[in-house]
């Protein structure tokens, strides 16, 4: 089965700048009407001298045919979940992105709607946003929600601002300066807390990979502003003592923040609102199937319990049973974290996804994500050199973390090498070296949209790689060879003398080389 051949396209594609030739055009700009030209005259003479651009920007001159070909060939040197076989990137939830959602999001009445149009002229969009917000509140058990944040980390920032504003409203911000974060947390958690002005306090995980209650009790104090937690945690294990965690944090006067990156394991099974979380974010580009776009756009709606509804960013989409509108009247609002109302076209895709799934389908999606993850975890955990550390015998949820430390010790083949070798089979690599509490970590999340045949095939691939590691380790360490390019010199990329992030810098580095 694994002899199935994969060769990624390789085009040796020049930079668009290298394709430019004086005189070529890629588009025709509309003409200025003669009468307008007569009345307005020469545009350059209108521009103040201090601002007139005398040298045109050095953009390439390329025909449309070449531009389209160039970017489509580049796309062929990229790997998407819809075009690839399997994208088991832990924590990123690379599930199939339904194509109908793309068609619906390209509706001209959405594409061409301006955010400052009178609300009376955009009732359709507002209806969708309100409906979506209501369903997300149902699923998460929260009482109100903002659709404004553009990403998960953006939602975390909002959540931390709300925690800050809440303590401020009670006159306690001066002393409540600490945000508690488990050592297994996503990097965005401590970074978001820091951006909101908190000091982070890291609590260690216990032997089962879950938050250590005793350590937590030690960590809380009247300086505690809150705790950020993802559940299931980054090891894919459900934090069963969550109600106790909630008690400890709340008794200390802190608030509980839910990082919804892993919510896709729990749809219809349990709700963060019931676990005691006061504020949550959810990643629509993970749990609700909207495409990641090579890094974005995403969407990270933030939900709160009723006592925090007044702190939400403005405006909030509301409905008075006659018309939909935007509510700017939130007395303790944290303000805004971006322009306008959110990544609307991402929100519309999530809305369509929920209609396609329904409540039962969403629950089924979570269950199958968990089933698929356990199905392969059990098999891969037995592969020579790999192991499932921590929480032995506990079921995983939608993802699990392997350790390749035995393999590394015995063969010199590290988690990174395994990941690179996986690419050679036309399968995307898992997340590596995260969470930090597992040595030589490989974090695997198959999602519910992968057929059984591919799950089985993935297990076989790992067996084959393991066998290779123990017999011909060099071959694994040299991977990948079936991708558009081999391993890259990342040190060179970051070195002060060779750092190059633009064409203009590239040209000047090449010139220097020429001189020397």
């Amino acid at each position, binding site marked *: 089965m694994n002899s199935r051949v994969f060769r990624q396209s390789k085009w040796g594609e020049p930079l668009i700048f290298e394709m430019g030739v004086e005189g070529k055009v890629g588009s025709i700009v509309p003409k200025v009407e003669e009468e307008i030209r007569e009345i307005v005259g020469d545009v350059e003479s209108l521009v103040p001298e201090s601002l007139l651009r005398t040298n045109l920007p050095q953009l390439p001159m390329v025909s449309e045919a070449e531009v389209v070909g160039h970017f489509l060939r580049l796309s062929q040197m990229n790997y998407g979940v819809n075009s690839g076989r399997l994208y088991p990137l832990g924590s990123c939830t690379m599930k199939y992105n339904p194509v109908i959602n793309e068609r619906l999001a390209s*509706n001209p009445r959405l594409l061409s709607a301006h955010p*400052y149009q009178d609300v009376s002229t955009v009732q359709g969009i507002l209806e969708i946003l309100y409906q979506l917000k209501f369903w997300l509140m149902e699923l998460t058990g929260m009482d109100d929600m903002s659709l404004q944040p553009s990403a998960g980390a953006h939602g975390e920032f909002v959540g931390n601002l709300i925690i800050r504003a809440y303590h401020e409203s009670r006159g306690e911000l001066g002393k409540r300066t600490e945000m508690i974060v488990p050592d297994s947390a996503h990097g965005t958690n401590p970074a978001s807390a820091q951006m909101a002005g908190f000091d982070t306090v890291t609590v260690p995980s216990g032997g089962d990979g879950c938050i250590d209650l005793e350590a937590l009790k030690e960590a809380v104090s009247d300086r505690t502003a809150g705790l950020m937690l993802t559940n299931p945690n980054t090891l894919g294990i459900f934090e069963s003592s969550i109600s106790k965690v909630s008690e400890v944090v709340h008794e200390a006067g802190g608030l509980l923040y839910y990082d919804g990156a892993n919510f896709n394991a729990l749809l219809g099974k349990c709700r963060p609102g019931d676990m005691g979380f006061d504020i949550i974010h959810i990643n629509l580009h993970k749990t609700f199937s909207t495409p990641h776009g090579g890094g974005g756009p995403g969407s990270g709606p933030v939900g709160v319990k009723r006592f925090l509804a007044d702190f939400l960013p403005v405006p909030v989409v509301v409905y008075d049973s006659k018309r939909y509108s935007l509510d700017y009247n939130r007395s303790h609002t944290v303000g805004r974290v971006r322009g306008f109302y959110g990544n609307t076209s991402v929100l519309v895709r999530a809305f369509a996804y929920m209609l396609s799934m329904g409540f039962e389908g969403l629950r089924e999606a979570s269950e199958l994500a968990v089933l698929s993850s356990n199905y392969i975890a059990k098999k891969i955990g037995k592969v020579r050199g790999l192991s499932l550390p921590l929480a032995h015998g506990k079921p995983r949820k939608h993802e699990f973390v392997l350790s390749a430390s035995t393999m590394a010790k015995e063969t010199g083949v590290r988690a990174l090498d395994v990941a690179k070798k996986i690419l050679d089979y036309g399968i995307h690599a898992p997340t590596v070296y995260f969470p930090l509490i597992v040595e030589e970590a490989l974090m695997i999340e198959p999602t519910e949209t992968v057929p*059984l045949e591919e799950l089985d095939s993935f297990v076989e691939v790992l067996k084959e790689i393991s066998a290779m590691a123990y017999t011909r380790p060099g071959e694994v360490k040299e991977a990948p060879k079936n991708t558009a390019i081999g391993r890259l010199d990342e040190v060179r990329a970051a070195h002060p003398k060779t750092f190059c992030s633009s064409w203009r810098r590239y040209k000047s580095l090449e010139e220097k080389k020429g001189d020397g």
Partner: protein
Amino acid sequence: MNKPHPYLPTSAPEIKRKMLEDLDLESVDDLYSDLPETLRCTCSLNIPGPYAESKVREIVEKALEKNEEFLCPPFLGGGVWPHYVPAAVDETVQRAEFLTSYTPYQPEISQGMLQALFEYQSLICELVGLDVVNSSMYDWASALGEAARMASRLTRRNEFIVPALIHPERLQVLRAYAKPAGIKVVQVGYNSETGQTDLEGLAEKTSKNTAAVYIENPSYLGFAEERVNEISEMAHGKGALFVAGVDPLSLGLLRAPGDYGADIVVGEGQPLGNHMNYGGPLLGIFACRGDLSVVKQMPGRIVGLTRSLKEGERGFCITLQTREQHIRRERATSNICTNEALCAVAAAVYLSLLGPRGLRELCEVIVSRSNYAMRRLSEVPGIRTPLFKAFHFKEFTVHLENGRRYREVHEGLLRREIHGGKYLGAEFPQLRETALFCVTESHSKEDIDRLVAALKEVLLE
């Protein structure tokens, strides 16, 4: 669920059974045995479906039909603008290999996205006249918030000076980003005739506490800030940085901010091939000077050019990652992870299509038409436009005299299937009965003439 679902290949009962047997389990619920009883959802939540694809389409399309359409694009700007998006742009960003990929952390299999982002960075560098551009922020406003924090880190100072006529929403975002970092936002006044920043006021407010001076070009109200050289000198003279916020499209005609001394440039990339989408997704542009000490304080992802280790082939990877949250955690320059990469790819395709002359010509069309609209509107009795004597790019203020209410006039336009400008009186008390209109290449002479005629009619009502 009884029936298999098309998105769920393992939902067929026989397949599921096989997987469960393999795990020695009776039901999937056994995998949730660690959920405390008290936390389990027992009821069915109130979410409709699952629906057939045809029904999903019908529901979404029916809802969107409630959005009103107009005879031409709305005369609205203020941070999102109606511009034409070429078909080649839409085609590129709909490619599944781009659209459905994750952040290119595995460079060997993601060269396409990495090169496209490198080209985006390179194209923006040419526009803004600076050496380093990151691969995107959420939008102009959040990019401005990050710029204030970066300026404060670089200068170890805590005041950020902005114009009084800054976009009010952008100001609100800036404050949300600045406050937790202990940065004070200070506003400087303007000349009421020209809208230009009051340089004497600026001189008074710039001090050894100033981290940076920020200007918007064109400003929120559409006029250009002309005395950029003086402002740059004033900021640098006090050891502060100079930050410029731009509409990148205007840079086909207007000077690159890097050329007039800007250390950091932020802006909104939506006009570069991204649809308005009711305000999102947008594309936050973020550029800075190339000294590595400056770049190391930059937020966001940067794609760099390098070589493959073995064959020495040219290739691309994410670089300077030690600034980022997944490595540096609470000491990262920002928490940003997911960004607006696909919108950046759209911008790269757009700028490649336009080229240097196309961009210049497009600017000329925009300026010609917006200035034509101002001329024609200013001939209408009861209308004063623009309020500020300065060069305007695509937006301009339209003021109603003789006690006429903008709200009423606006509704008169809506009845004629024309969407007028954005009312400014709620944001600036000094701009009562004034609206911000926007004219771009997507408005023809006919559209403008129709607007003028309609306004005349409405004002006579």
